[in-house]
């Protein structure tokens, strides 16, 4: 096997986190190689992205990796894992999930970083549900706040601040942690559904605000502002207004002259020797095995790939790699309106509104029998003809015989209601449960004979209780808005929604975590895991902004050590 010349840094996975690491480290003067399984797709490749069948129904951006690298799933260890019928969707390509994401871009609340302390102080240790291992993060909101700021500025985030240096701002989220300044870009023009939701929420004394979004509402950093075409979540952006890491930071990494991206490359192993990681073995575009030595190795895969790569490489000294998988339970309530037109096809899900009264510990949980909660956000826009009509059946909203869900009754129903629907979503986080784990499947192999990821996961009573508490409140908002009928989605869903985090948790104790506060492996000090996989607990918001902030945070430590002769210099 040919061994390539050593570089300072190799990054595995050029997604949301990997592109930020590439930009930060290459512009700081380090020689960086990025290995990406998928292709590089530029904005012009999405010129004809207004195609629901291709992007949303046939999942053009999400499908390829699954064909070659399947995964298996079981709800618990007593059930046999299956590898068919499970709609895993994983992004591949430069930019990763930030290419197709819906762009809701949240900072976690200060509370979320001290979950165990807050809950036990307020409700007692017994409030922590059995079977969980709830901890505090090794860093605080204040530690991460400057790096959230950096994401806002460098990627281009639109929104309205709710708290600037402790002063609550009207029109923003009154519950959010303090920011040093407002967003660099004003909120997006809100969808019709968002406006309907905000009016109703205000009437019920909630404080709705524009959901922060990784879409530029005005021209910014050489990119055109959003045109509100409505082909957004699940689609690539045809003008580059969506602030993916591909259009925002990747070009700056390339311009540094210190960065080389190798796409179409499949990493199969991290090699180690003498207590450190030494190189990465991968198959190049031609399928030829290559070995890339590097001073530092950054694991920036999505949660599945990060765990799988560590286990395939025999990196799991304390047995915690793969434990405490967490995800979101999307608890959805849909409404239909007899008179109001909600224009569901106009604009994008990024341009919606949220209420945060029921997130985290923003409300008193005394006597409720559960902890935590979720943001509640309207889902106006981005609804196209196939998906919109597929989800609209009379039987979803009223008791009818099964055969009334097709034929003339179905036709009459979609004619009446396609443009008169609005959904609300609560992103309930799962707690870190001992029984929710990822490991290697003992029998199923991928296309090159390597064991695939086996996911063992289910939501539990705490998540169900949150849903039971929130769904009536969501329905009441829709009723207030004029909905003639509402329907609740399921309380619990399986983990294939691109929000999975947790199984390489960060912590301050090497026996109880996989990486330290700087995302540095306890086991191999020149390896970093920069991925949602490091979250020790979860929150009722989308994860990407926090993943990106952690990337800037981890990069700052590496840069600082490189520039000041710190411990890491010996590996470079």
């Amino acid at each position, binding site marked *: 096997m040919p061994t390539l010349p050593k570089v300072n840094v190799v990054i595995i996975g050029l997604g949301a986190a990997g592109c930020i690491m590439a930009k930060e480290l290459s512009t700081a003067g380090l020689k960086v190689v990025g290995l990406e399984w998928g292709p590089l797709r530029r904005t012009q490749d999405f010129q004809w992205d207004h195609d629901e069948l291709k992007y949303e129904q046939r999942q053009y951006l999400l499908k390829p990796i699954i064909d070659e690298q399947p995964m298996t799933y079981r709800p618990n260890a007593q059930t046999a894992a299956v590898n068919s019928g499970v709609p895993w969707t994983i992004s591949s390509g430069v930019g990763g999930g930030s290419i197709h994401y819906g762009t809701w871009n949240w900072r976690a609340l200060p509370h979320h970083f001290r979950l165990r302390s807050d809950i036990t102080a307020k409700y007692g240790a017994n409030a922590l549900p059995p079977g969980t291992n709830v901890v505090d993060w090794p860093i605080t909101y204040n530690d991460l706040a400057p790096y959230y700021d950096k994401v806002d500025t460098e990627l281009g985030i639109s929104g309205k601040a709710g708290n600037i240096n402790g002063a609550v701002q009207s029109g923003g989220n009154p519950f959010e942690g303090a920011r040093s300044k407002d967003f660099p870009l004003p909120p997006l023009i809100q969808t019709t559904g968002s406006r309907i939701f905000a009016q109703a929420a205000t009437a019920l004394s909630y404080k709705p605000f524009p959901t922060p979004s990784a879409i530029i509402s005005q021209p910014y950093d050489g990119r055109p502002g959003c045109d509100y075409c409505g082909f957004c979540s699940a689609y690539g952006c045809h003008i580059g207004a969506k602030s993916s890491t591909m259009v925002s930071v990747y070009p700056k990494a390339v311009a540094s002259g210190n960065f080389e991206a190798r796409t179409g490359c499949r990493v199969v192993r991290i090699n180690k020797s003498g207590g450190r990681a030494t190189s990465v073995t991968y198959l190049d575009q031609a399928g030829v095995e290559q070995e890339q030595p590097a001073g530092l190795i950054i694991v920036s895969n999505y949660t599945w790939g990060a765990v799988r790569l560590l286990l395939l490489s025999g990196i799991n000294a304390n047995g915690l790699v793969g434990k405490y998988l967490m995800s979101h339970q999307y608890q959805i309530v849909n409404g239909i309106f007899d008179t109001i037109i909600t224009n569901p096809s106009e604009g994008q899900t990024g341009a919606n509104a949220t209420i945060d009264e029921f997130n985290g510990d923003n409300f008193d949980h005394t006597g409720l029998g559960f902890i935590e909660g979720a943001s509640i956000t309207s889902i106006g826009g981005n609804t196209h003809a196939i998906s919109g009509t597929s989800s609209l059946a009379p039987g979803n909203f009223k008791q009818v015989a099964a055969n009334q869900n*097709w034929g003339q009754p179905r036709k009459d129903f979609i004619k009446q209601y396609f443009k008169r629907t609005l959904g609300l979503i609560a992103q309930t986080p799962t707690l870190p449960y001992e029984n929710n784990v990822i490991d290697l499947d003992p029998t199923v192999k991928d296309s090159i004979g390597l064991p695939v990821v086996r996911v063992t996961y289910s939501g539990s009573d705490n998540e169900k209780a949150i849903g039971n508490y929130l769904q009536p409140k969501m329905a009441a908002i829709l009723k207030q808005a004029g909905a003639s009928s509402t329907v609740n989605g399921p309380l619990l869903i399986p983990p294939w929604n691109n929000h999975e985090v947790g199984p390489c948790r960060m912590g301050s104790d090497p026996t109880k975590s996989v990486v330290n506060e700087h995302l540095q492996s306890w086991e191999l000090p020149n390896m970093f895991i920069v991925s949602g996989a490091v979250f020790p607990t979860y929150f009722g918001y989308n994860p990407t902004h926090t993943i990106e902030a952690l990337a800037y945070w981890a990069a700052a430590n590496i840069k600082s050590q490189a520039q000041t002769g710190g411990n890491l210099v010996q590996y470079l």
Partner: protein
Amino acid sequence: MQESIETTQENLGVSRRYFVKGAGIIAGGFAVGSMALAQACTSNSPTTTPPGTTTPPPTTTTPPVVETFLFFNAVEAATVKAAFGRLLPGSASDPGAVEAGAHIYVDRALNGAYANLGMAYHRGLTAMNAYSQSKFTKNFGDLTTTQQDSVLTDMQGGTATGFYAPGSGEFFSLLLKHMTEGTFCDPLYGGNQNLVGWKMIGYPGSQAAYTDAEMAIGFDQASKKILTLADIESIVMPLPSSGF
């Protein structure tokens, strides 16, 4: 030249930030006022053509597709067409799945993107006709609509016999899914002919942009002139200056 481009721009109902291919030298130099553009964006009434300009040919009318099939044989085609006619019924004045050409769409897809489902269709349609024969002594396509609904109801409920891979309920779901795709996809795929699917539900299609006014409460998305992929192909979109 500039006038005719403006006309095209108005007909397409898009933001003035965009321009039509070949018009690069006047990019950003449109003389049309924002009010006029806003009206063009929000009105479904026919635009008036200024004197001395050429109206571009309408682009949203799909030419009729001859019912020759790439994948189905004649009996299979008749079976799918009849089933789609019951799943989303229609007529010339109130089009449904068949008028949209959803059966044409599935035929083309089975010869391409869904080639892996070919056997499922062959088996499923054969079983459908065998079950129709056993129950009503005719192929599905030759039954009365009441009899057809009865067969479909049995399939949906999983009580229709003679299906094995896919099962009858599974095949029913597949037909329903593909009927929906064929009725509501972009016409490039062979379905949604003459945009009958999108017109049915008030879907504006592949718009390049929506304005603040169009997203206000009280606006009706169905009042937009429907655009397709073929329509917006001719619009040059702005790109990031980095080239990425």
